């Protein structure tokens, strides 16, 4: 049985395909966000909408619900809604779309109840990855603006995802300071 046949069988008496609720998160490049823009976006996005903005990354995420019969329709509806809302809120320039995530509300519910396991690490593992002391790892995490954001701040310490820290390690321009170790001097002289 094809998908089209299933869709045809589930049409209601008026010939409409039954719609479902979809959870949409649309992210755009947007360096700033003021109160008027918050109010405009909240008014213009469909239904109950929340926004998250990270000024360091210059990213704005819009989270809302759309009604649609299929994933494709839900994605198109979410994109249209986000573009239209941004067009009103940021009249001068519609921000560039960077990410979209659309999934059925039931799946979103399951994801919240049973989050996917993640490879989480703290300062001990960060120190190992970067080849520095635990103190230096903590210093980098708290002072280097390029260091990834922690996933959560526990009472003991922050936790990070391993991929975010290994990505940082790959781009981190390690600077060695102080006198070279004796061992290093010996190997360089031979």
């Amino acid at each position, binding site marked *: 049985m094809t998908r089209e046949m299933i869709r045809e069988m589930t049409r209601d008496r008026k010939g409409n395909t039954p719609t479902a*609720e979809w959870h949409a998160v649309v992210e755009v490049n947007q360096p700033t966000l003021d*109160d008027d823009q918050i109010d405009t976006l909240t008014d213009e996005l469909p239904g*109950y909408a929340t926004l998250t903005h990270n000024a*360091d990354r210059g990213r704005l995420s819009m989270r809302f619900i759309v009604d649609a019969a299929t994933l494709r329709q839900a994605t198109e509806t979410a994109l249209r809604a986000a573009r239209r809302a941004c067009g009103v809120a940021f009249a001068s320039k519609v921000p560039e779309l960077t990410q979209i995530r659309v999934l059925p509300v039931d799946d979103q519910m399951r994801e*919240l109840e049973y989050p996917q396991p993640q490879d989480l690490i703290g300062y001990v593992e960060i120190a190992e990855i970067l080849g520095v002391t635990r103190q230096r790892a903590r210093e980098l995490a708290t002072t280097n603006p390029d260091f990834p954001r922690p996933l959560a701040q526990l009472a003991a310490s922050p936790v990070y995802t391993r991929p975010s820290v290994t990505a940082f390690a790959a781009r981190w321009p390690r600077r060695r300071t102080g006198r070279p170790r004796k061992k290093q001097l010996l190997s360089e002289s031979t």
Partner: protein
Amino acid sequence: MTDWMNKVADEARRQGFGVGQTPKGNWRFSKGGDTWTAPGTPTTPAEWLVLIGTLREMGLDMPSQGDDQGDDQGDDQG
């Protein structure tokens, strides 16, 4: 049902977020370079999912819905 958003605001303050409201009454929570907003207490299960997803993203635990508190609003409502 504004009490529940007041609980979210209390929890956010406890975790170091600045709490306020926009001129149109949307809730605004800020900390460092992060800002998140919510229009108010959700009314449908799907709306609750939107808010809870946002709370999780921002590292905030959802307050329990058991005991109601007062009607105090944000710190710097405009």
